[in-house]
């Protein structure tokens, strides 16, 4: 479990009194301590799965908003036992609907907003606002407030403190009253991030309401309908908002591993003769595969000419600057195991062809494990000059990825990702017209 940030139980206050209370709190605390001069972080933290599992007594409370190993195991078991599609995500509506159907209505303490990974809290967010929608029958919107002072191992100075606010209630109520509460809590001059810690299919109205202002967005396009994901990205880019996508961040080791192969200058010529690209993904969610293909095509100046969805794969054709064709395929590989992050890349194969003699051609294979490398070697690939590497899909928690983002992001969309989004949208349109 993530460490608890506040030592005291947050105080319940009416929403209209929070802002005044916090001002008072900082003034009385210490005349030199105005709180961290960092950023505010708003987290949409529905934890629908955790709430439903607790209500059905499948796990014990309290509800903390942490995707614990226990929750993951229980959810995977449910998917298998109830014969839901194996590719179902842990965030899938089918799973939540299934749980809600048999709702036992067991109660548990709700501590969302009080637990954060230390990697986030040691960045000293000035204000942490957790939006905690609930599937309780009660309709009242509740707000809680507390101060926190994370202690660093190194800081010799007094701790830098921040405060946290939890807004709990039905989604509709949060959507209706939340924006005004947050507006009153905004701190001028400090950047504000909105982390949508849920599927993009979840509460689109709330998402629109909260992402409307000039906040920097953190989303995860591994979860949500693919069209919805692409449209959200497209909309954000068109409106010039800053966006960071954890699905793109998880692709980092693939980008790095592929680039690493071509660092030695003598290998770079291979890039000029790539004729085939295969991307294997876990399940059927194609967004991450699109990102990878879009990034490669952007860097190598390929132009999309054609794309189509076939029975068990997607084919995309590009033309290189010299007019030669490059065929890329996205292949769904069923792994028989429900995924936290659907559609993660598990294999990449590039074939660079300079001759009809296979020995003069090169095949580059990156696989999430050696078995995947061996699979991609099939079909005569081993006759070529082979460059292989294993890129293990060791995922960090979302909190950990978010903390890295908060620590390093310049507050704009990375140009690399922006280009990738534009090309991915283009490919998506070409596939689904």
């Amino acid at each position, binding site marked *: 479990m993530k460490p608890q940030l506040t030592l005291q139980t947050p105080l319940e206050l009416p929403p209209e009194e929070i802002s005044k209370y916090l001002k008072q709190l900082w003034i009385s605390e210490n005349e030199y301590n105005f709180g961290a001069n960092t950023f505010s972080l708003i987290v949409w933290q529905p934890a629908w799965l955790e709430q439903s599992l607790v209500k059905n007594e499948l796990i014990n409370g309290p509800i903390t908003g942490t995707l614990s190993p226990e929750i993951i195991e229980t959810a995977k078991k449910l998917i298998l036992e109830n014969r839901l599609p194996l590719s179902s995500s842990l965030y899938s509506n089918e799973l939540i609907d299934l749980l809600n159907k048999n709702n036992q209505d067991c109660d548990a303490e709700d501590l969302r907003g009080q637990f954060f990974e230390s990697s986030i809290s040691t960045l000293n967010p000035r204000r942490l606002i957790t939006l905690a929608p609930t599937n309780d029958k009660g309709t009242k919107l509740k707000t809680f407030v507390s101060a926190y002072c994370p202690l660093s191992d*190194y800081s010799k100075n007094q701790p830098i403190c921040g405060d946290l606010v939890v807004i709990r209630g039905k989604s509709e109520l949060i959507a209706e009253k939340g924006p005004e509460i947050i507006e009153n809590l905004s701190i001028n001059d400090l950047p504000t991030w909105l982390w949508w810690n849920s599927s993009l299919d979840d509460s689109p109205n709330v998402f629109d309401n909260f992402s409307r202002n000039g906040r920097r967005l953190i989303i995860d396009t591994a979860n949500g309908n693919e069209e919805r994901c692409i449209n959200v990205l497209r909309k954000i880019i068109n409106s010039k908002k800053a966006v960071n996508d954890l699905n793109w961040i998880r692709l980092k080791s693939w*980008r*790095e591993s*592929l*680039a690493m192969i*071509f*660092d*030695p*200058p*003598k290998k*770079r*010529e291979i*890039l*000029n003769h790539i004729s085939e690209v295969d991307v294997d993904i876990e399940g059927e969610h194609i967004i991450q595969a699109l990102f990878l293909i879009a990034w*490669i095509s952007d*860097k*190598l100046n390929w132009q999309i000419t054609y794309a189509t969805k076939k029975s068990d794969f997607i084919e995309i054709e590009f033309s290189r600057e*010299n007019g030669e064709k490059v065929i890329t395929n996205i292949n769904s590989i069923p792994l028989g195991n429900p995924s936290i992050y659907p559609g993660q890349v598990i294999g990449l194969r590039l074939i660079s062809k300079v001759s009809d003699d296979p020995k003069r051609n090169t095949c580059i294979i990156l696989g999430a494990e050696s078995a995947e490398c061996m699979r991609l070697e099939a079909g005569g690939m081993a006759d070529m000059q082979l460059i292989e590497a294993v890129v293990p899909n060791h995922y960090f928690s979302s909190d950990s990825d978010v903390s890295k983002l908060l620590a*390093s*992001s*310049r507050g704009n969309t*990375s*140009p*690399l990702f922006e280009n990738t989004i534009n090309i991915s949208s283009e490919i998506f349109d070409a596939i689904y017209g």
Partner: protein
Amino acid sequence: MQPSLSNPLRIGLRQERVIPPQCLIIFGASGDLTHRKLIPALFDLYLQRRLPSEFAIVGCARRPWSDNEFKEKISSKLFEKISDNKDEWRIFSNYLFYQPVDLQNLEQVKDLASRLSQIDKKQATHGNKTFYLSVSPNFYAGGCKALKESGLIEDPKKSRIVIEKPFGRDYSSARRLNKIVQSCADESQIFRIDHYLGKETVQNILVLRFANTIFEPIWNRNYISNIQITSSETVGVEDRAGYYESSGALRDMLQNHLTQMLAVTAMEPPGKFDPEAIRNEKAKVLQASKLANEIKPWECCVRGQYGKGGNISSPLNGYREEKGVNPNSTTETYIAAKVFIDNWRWQGVPFYLRTGKRLPKRLGEIVLTFKDVPVHLFESTIIDPSPNQLILRIQPNEGATFKFEVKSPGSGMRSRPVQMDFSYDESFGEPSDEGYVRLLADSMLGDPTLFTRSDEVEAAWKLYTPLIELMENSPWKLPTHKYESKTWGPPEADQLLAKDNIFWRRP
């Protein structure tokens, strides 16, 4: 199709740390270092898009220049670098400002403070300031005091001071200077620069040692017979005679650059990659270092001075004939020393350090020579089997080479040495940044990992105290031997190792 100049898949992939809004104030802005190293490094950072848009560089010196004059002076000196990036330079030069300041004149420093607050507002630099003292070491103490008195370094989170080498002239002056500087600013604000630590290859020593399992188990007295650290220059004193006459190779190179390489090579693994953890280990190993013979330091050190050289068509002056050099100067342009480290890891392993001017090659390298095998089973194609060597090349042709024995082809069972090579150029194909690029960025980011802490500087001076005292009190015991320009130093330096039946590696 032409092969790409750079790896297209690498573009935009490197996630560099973000430098916060910043005002960099360079004292000594009319000097050589500013236009030769600092501004080019800052321009490189700009070209790499690593500078924030809220940024300012304020040049300070005694000359009564205006902002525009400063810009013109700098751009005329950087003509070549700018000519390929004219548009970028035009934008970059908007960051440049100038304020005439004499660091000894408190009123002028106070005037600077009010100019800085105007620039802070104009450039939105959020009050973050980095002061770079690129001035004569005589002004370090006074400069820090003036900055303190004018309130410019009041906020330890928003202000820093970068101090160039040499930090002191000996142990006691370094201690005095540390006390003064620390009375003006918190240690966390003080960044003592040693540009060797900014070199990619020096940092790579840490990665090589602590990111691999194969090196660390043999990185000790059980396997290593000796370590040689060399930094050689082909150039003479050039136009630095004024400074060099009072410094010499010991103060200019040995006490700082070579000793830092020694520290990075010999330190224990830190518990974590954290500035203080790393600097603790460096300080500890320097505190455990001592000259091989502290009672008779002349037995473990050789000084040299370059004499004439070259040939009839291009003769080279000896040091004493150089412009600005005392014709009877005894300043050393070459120094070699033998050092031991009194700890469990290195007990009894000699570290040989040498540096000099007008040597045959420009070179920086660390050579770890491993112990001989206990029994020679195989005859060698040369006289004796060579011991294994790991050569870490700091410059040029940055990389590493490992020398080991293999079977010589043929029907016999004779061994011969071969080498395995890693070259930055061949592996990465892109030049690494100048040390100053990395260090300037780190100082503005407030990351002190690659800067020397007060205890490290003091330990490094203490190590050479017997030599310095000898040179000052009984210089005849440590004479400067002549060596011909473009040779590998005086023959006495070879004798220093020959006594241990070892030879300098001829690179």
